[in-house]
């Protein structure tokens, strides 16, 4: 590449629990080319400037969900955010908002994983079927009803975007509720009633106030705001009719 070398300043919010009382910004000057992502900038820092900077990454193609971080205050995947967009002013990189910082750019994922495990994120079949009977039939249109919500890569950008989650960590949160909805509207699944116990609760759909920022930042177009808010009507109806019909007016 014949470019004269351009240098960009990357400020990284550091936090080493064994030596830092609280997070502190550290600045690095990184030579870059136009095709380099923020992730590659961080890798340069770790390889040649400061081996102690810790961050998660793997696939480099926005499908594994590891590399979410705040870039100039916005939740993004560092592998598909490009340094050229922040030149010449430089950029600030911090761990995802609304989550505890474990180390540098690595947040605690325990709450997310625990919540994921709590929503019964698996098919509870509507009707039984043996393997010999082959696959359940599902038309392309039935598949369209849930496919979007099944595209979540668990990157947690939506949690960094959601102020309700930041204010109230008990809230199940956008991504997990979208996953729950994915199963609820899968034509093969019959577990809505079980999942609605969580969904219709305060920590479920009602923890959401339709800020909508989650859907803005989602790199995969999952639209968790939609997944959550389309259930509030049913939840409200259920609230009023549960004394009339046995088990409530669930889908």
């Amino acid at each position, binding site marked *: *590449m014949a470019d004269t070398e351009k240098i960009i300043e990357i400020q990284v919010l550091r936090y*080493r*629990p*064994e*030596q830092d009382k609280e997070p502190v910004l550290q600045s690095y000057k990184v030579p870059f080319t136009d*095709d380099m992502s923020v992730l590659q900038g961080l890798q340069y820092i*770790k*390889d*040649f400037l*400061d*081996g*102690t900077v*810790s*961050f*998660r*990454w*793997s*696939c*480099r*193609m*926005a*499908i*594994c*969900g*590891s590399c979410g971080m705040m870039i100039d205050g916005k939740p993004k995947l560092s592998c*598909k955010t490009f340094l050229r967009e922040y030149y010449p002013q430089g950029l600030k990189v911090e761990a995802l908002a609304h989550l505890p910082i*474990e*180390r*540098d750019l*690595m947040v605690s*994922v325990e709450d997310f*994983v625990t919540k*994921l*495990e709590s929503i019964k*994120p*698996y*098919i509870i*079949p509507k009707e039984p*079927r043996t*393997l010999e009977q*082959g*696959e*359940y*039939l*599902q*038309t*392309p249109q*039935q*598949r369209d009803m*849930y*496919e979007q919500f*099944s*595209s979540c*890569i*668990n990157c947690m950008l939506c949690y960094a975007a959601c102020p309700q989650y930041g204010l109230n960590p008990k809230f199940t949160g956008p991504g997990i509720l979208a*996953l729950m909805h994915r*199963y609820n509207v*899968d034509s*093969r*699944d019959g577990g809505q009633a079980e999942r609605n116990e969580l969904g219709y609760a305060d920590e479920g759909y009602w923890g959401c106030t339709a800020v909508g920022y989650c859907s803005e930042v989602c790199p995969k177009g999952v639209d968790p705001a939609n997944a959550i808010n389309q259930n509030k009507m049913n939840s409200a109806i259920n609230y009023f009719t549960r004394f009339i019909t046995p088990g409530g007016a669930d889908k």
Partner: protein
Amino acid sequence: MEVFKADVAIVGAGGGGLRAAIAVAESDPTLKIALISKVLPMRSHTVAAEGGAAAVTRPEDSLEHHFNDTVGGGDWLCEQDVVEYFVAHAHEEMVQMEHWGCPWSRKEDGHANTRAFGGMKIERTWFAADKTGFHMLHTLFQTSIKYPSIKRFDEYFCCDLMVEDGRCQGVLAIEIATGEFTLIEAKAVIIATGGAGRVFRENTNGGIVTGDGMALAYRHGVPLRDMEFVQYHPTCMPRTGLLFTEACRGEGGLLLNKDGYRYLQDYGLGPPEDKPRNKFMELGPRDRLSQAFWHEQQKGRTIKGPFGSVVNLDLRHLGEAYLRERLPQIYELAEEFMGIDPAHECIPVVPGVHYTMGGILADGKTASSLPGLYSVGECSSVGIHGANRLGSNSLTELIVFGKVAGLEAVKFAKSVAISNPGAIRKQAEAAQARALGLVNNPGGTERMAVLRTEMAQSMEDGCGIYRLGTTMQATCNKIDELRQRYKNLKLEDKSKVYNTEWLLGIELGYLLEVAQSMVYSAINRKESRGSHQRLDGFEERDDANYLKHSLAYYAGDGAPRIEYGDVKITKSQPGKRAYGAAGVQADEERKKKGAANG
């Protein structure tokens, strides 16, 4: 240190590891399973697989076709009895995945759809848009949550196997969050840690694909089989190496050189037709396509791009609507990473390292030569890929053999008890000291990134698509040298909490040893077969001398010892490996011969 007692330990929670864990849990819910992964399960590299998973489905298809495609695709280096098992159990595993919720793409009538893939005679690749690995991994992970007997150790880094009384009896793992060690005793251990593509410079792999499990088994005397066979995927993004799935070609994508010419017809893959035709042209096997690129490059017919030579992947004729529906992920990749709209422009592509055909020697039941140790997936050489893997066989491999590994591990675990926990404890402490020695190395001078870059460049030079004895020797020397220099590794990070530099240092050790097994296996194979092609007097396939598996044995500090093992041939005698019109002719001849002998 913490001690956890499990019945079965599984290292790696990708498609293979998760399927094995589910198989154990379903087989016997009372058995304790430790599922250990250095990343959260949904980050495993299975997630990046795009194209699909093969299984005989259409009425015009047959197990014999899939068998022949696979064995021929592997240039007859496959264990044919294992391939027979594989093709026979593929379909039921696809259905099982579907029952667990996998969002397979459908035909209008509601049945699962199948598409064409390279080297496959009939369409048999099940797919979930162009994110099949993603959907399979998430389905398996989410399904695994149903089973309380699976205890996950997320972000635990496995740094050694515990081998006592001639058996594998557990693993030692580092809890990445704290830097503390946990000994996991287990009566059976399954390794499912994936491939080792990161030894090369340009590759489709994620950062975690560093050959961990291969190196661990290797160090304990288990041979690594067929390590010289490394797959170059023909259509990767220049410089980053990110994958453009074979499904692009299955849906009708064309490969064009600088003259807009479909050059594959010059390499025994023609004649070209308007519609994609199985095993012709762009639907030939990956090794042939990558090799064709190399030849075009020699002839000066590739296009000069900012990152080197490329060819064009032309998807324009498919139209935006079709592309967005069938290939949404690669559409986004082209747009976001390259600023290219595939509906209106060609995508520049280049071959990149994608898959490691070789791995831990495993028999048809995934058992290794070390009792109690099993392996599944890309880290394993169970014998179905031979010298070249067909696309969409590896996702199927994960679930067919994931189940086998799980069930075999159950049988073994029930038949033994942990012997000598005291000795195992001592081993664990020694392994802990070795791992910590890396951080506390006082005389460190070598920068990790320098060693890694030199290794990756050298492997690309010596173990490329075409190989020469001279460059392979240079790579052998370089890797030997790097292994010595590794002893002087300098690490800056001395902390315990999430010290990722330390773990990268351990991974570099794994990479160097696996790289060494690859290049020494390569230089000793004096023939050309599948993805191992030489230009130094050994251009032909030599069945007389080399219809054998390479076996690399760890030799401590020195170069690995390379031995050879037999190939199991049952139904398919080695024949001409032909595609395109020549392939059709070879099939006819084989049929006639079969009828004559019949």
